[in-house]
């Protein structure tokens, strides 16, 4: 059945190289040509002072424009379409399938797509919250609520776990280097393997979690069969995954705090808790705020873990906003409503963006980064 060794033959080896090598060559030539042309244009024709800066920036700018801005704008266009599985043929450049739409893009589609994210309309009346997926629990407020819970629990546990480990590791103890190397392993493991392995560890019969609980006389739990237990399981795995990041960040922060502060505090008679409260925490703040900001954003957007471990199930009960979005667009239980999903994705982005602006302006956390 399988050719060569593990599917690798001279032919398949070169088939891949035949795609990759020309790509790299084309990109390099393109970058050089772009920089050369742009530099001459800006410095000699326009006599710009910062010509070199713009030139150096241009490859990145083009990459971001082509691979990010253009797709994002295209996403907005898709929100004005009725693209779904049954209409794929209409939007295909090489029309294989038949098309039953009279127009491809229109405001009517956009209104329909955005409305459906929130409401279910029947005969011009709002009858209920809209269902983003199949079940009654897959409404926008329900998913938003779950996303907030998910983010809250994860960030809290990431922070407290990471801080506890960092405080212990910051003491004078032996084998510090070894502990640190072992504790950061979750971070280094390829995500898919982490998720699939943990998924199996939560298996009711053969998973280690139940074997361990069984050792304490606890009856086996069908972790991934019940929405609440499944939610606990995915939170656990993501906490496990996120603690090393905080530990490393906070350990770096703790080590940079000068011992003199503590000595001065001791002379003033401050106890351990007071030292922690009034010296350690304030001095960790510059590291903590950006770390928490990034963590909130990452956790809010944590798609791969949920798709691999539960795919939002059972009963669509472990979906957060982004996984519901993924399932609305690509899931097996929906009809690949890509136009609708584009509208949904824009709404999610707006929520995150508002959060970020409010949080960053109130905490002042990222000020230093972009003001420098």
């Amino acid at each position: 059945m399988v050719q060569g060794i593990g599917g690798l033959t001279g032919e398949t080896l070169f088939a891949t190289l035949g795609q990759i090598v020309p790509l790299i060559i084309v990109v390099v030539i393109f970058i050089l040509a772009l920089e050369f042309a742009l530099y001459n244009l800006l410095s000699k024709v326009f006599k710009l002072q910062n010509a070199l800066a713009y030139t150096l920036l241009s490859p990145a700018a083009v990459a971001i424009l082509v691979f990010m801005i253009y797709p994002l704008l295209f996403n907005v266009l898709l929100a004005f379409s009725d693209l779904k599985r049954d209409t794929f043929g209409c939007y295909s450049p090489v029309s294989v399938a038949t098309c039953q739409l009279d127009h491809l893009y229109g405001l009517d589609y956009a209104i329909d797509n955005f409305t459906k994210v929130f409401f279910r309309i029947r005969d011009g009346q709002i009858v209920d919250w809209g269902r983003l997926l199949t079940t009654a629990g897959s409404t926008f407020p329900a998913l938003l609520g779950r996303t907030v819970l998910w983010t809250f629990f994860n960030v809290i546990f990431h922070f407290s776990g990471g801080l506890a480990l960092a405080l212990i590791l910051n003491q004078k103890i032996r084998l510090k280097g070894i502990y640190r190397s072992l504790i950061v392993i979750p971070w280094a493991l390829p995500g898919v393997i982490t998720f699939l392995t943990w998924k199996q560890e939560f298996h009711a019969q053969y998973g280690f979690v139940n074997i361990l609980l069984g050792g304490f006389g606890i009856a086996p739990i069908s972790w991934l069969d019940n929405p609440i237990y499944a939610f606990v399981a995915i939170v656990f795995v993501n906490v496990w995954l996120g603690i090393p990041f905080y530990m490393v960040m906070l350990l770096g922060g703790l080590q940079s705090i000068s011992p003199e502060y503590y000595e001065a505090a001791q002379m003033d008679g401050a106890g351990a808790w007071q030292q922690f409260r009034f010296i350690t925490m304030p001095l960790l703040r510059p590291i903590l705020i950006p770390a928490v900001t990034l963590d909130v954003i990452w956790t809010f957007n944590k798609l791969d873990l949920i798709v691999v471990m539960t795919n939002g199930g059972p009963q669509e009960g472990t979906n957060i906003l982004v996984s519901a979005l993924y399932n609305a667009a690509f899931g097996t239980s929906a009809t690949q409503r890509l136009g609708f999903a584009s509208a949904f994705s824009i709404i999610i982005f707006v929520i995150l963006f508002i959060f970020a602006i409010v949080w960053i302006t109130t905490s002042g956390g990222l000020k230093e980064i972009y003001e420098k």
Partner: protein
Amino acid sequence: MKIKFVVLMVVALLALGSLSAVVAQDAMGPYTLVMWSQDGDTNNAVIAGLFEQWAAEFAPGSTLEIVQKETETLRNDLQTAGLAGSGLPDFFLGPNDAIGPLSDAGLLQPLDELFDMSMYPFNLGAAQIAGVTLGVPTNAGNHLMLMYNKSLVETAPDTWADLIAAANAVEEADPEIQGFAYNLNEPFWFLPFVHGFGGSTFDEEGNFSMDTEAWVNAYQFVHDLKFVEEVVPAECDYNCASDAFKAGTTAIILNGDWAIGEYLDTEVSPALGPDNLGVAPWPAYEDGNRPQPFTAGKFISIPVTTADAQLEGTVAFVTWLTTDAAAVEVHALGTGRLPAIAGIPVEDPILQASQAALETGVGMPANPALRCMWDSVRPNLEGVMSDALDAATAASESQISAELCLEG
């Protein structure tokens, strides 16, 4: 400009990559065919063997690449190819419920002109939409039935009470062995229970009728099997049931005819083989009615992109595979599935039992709305099977979400 660049780059690279393929395609005579198959490895191997035999005789040098895909992946991938306008296989083998949505998208070739449809007397309706035939049956059946390991359970249980007693007896004799298991959360395994209580997916007008007493009873029944009788494992998917059955650590399962070939092969299934595998219709409820599995068969369909030599090769091979008496017999015996054409004697006892089980089934409608039923039942069944949803709510929720799905 940037887009042009991407396109240019893409064109250049595609030209490079496809050069060899184009050269190969231009040569006439030997066919290089690609088939997507929803069948398991054992059955695909049977088809691969038959293809070699056919190629040796009629088209020397031809090759067939078989790519195995799960039911939903098959449907997804075919529809995605509709957006790309390319990447479709020359033909694919799958259950008939993929045909509805694919035909909606206009991705399938009408086959009435290409094949002599009078050859296939059974089940053709399951592959016809508005009178147009979109699939050639490779076999009849695709039905779920009761399978048991004769070394653990002597006779097939005839009622659910018998089954529960038999399963408990097995577990008492050896606690390491599971008495009874099946793919708990998969709607395909649940629908027979509904049919047994007199329910169906559509009413006479073709509207969903899922919020009925039969559906409630069925949800309640599968719930009770797990939480009252405690006769099924806490978690069980297809693999859990099938793998354990093959290994001899589960005594009774519910599975489809597609697995028979695998179970007869003692290399794959050390605990089974012709001596130990028993096959029977579903056990009866208290009132004597039996759950009725969906029946249809597997069908080969041809995407609209298959043309010229590819189409010629495909039609020639598929015609031979499904109508040549010797080929049909090899296929039936190798896969343990019932032939789709008349006049092929079935003497194998397992196949006869499978035939008996087939006769208890109900034909699967070719209505494209059927996929909305599958999609809406899944989460509700999950809810019932985790004791989180009561049967009545599950039934009414199934109805609502199926209707919403249809609205799009």
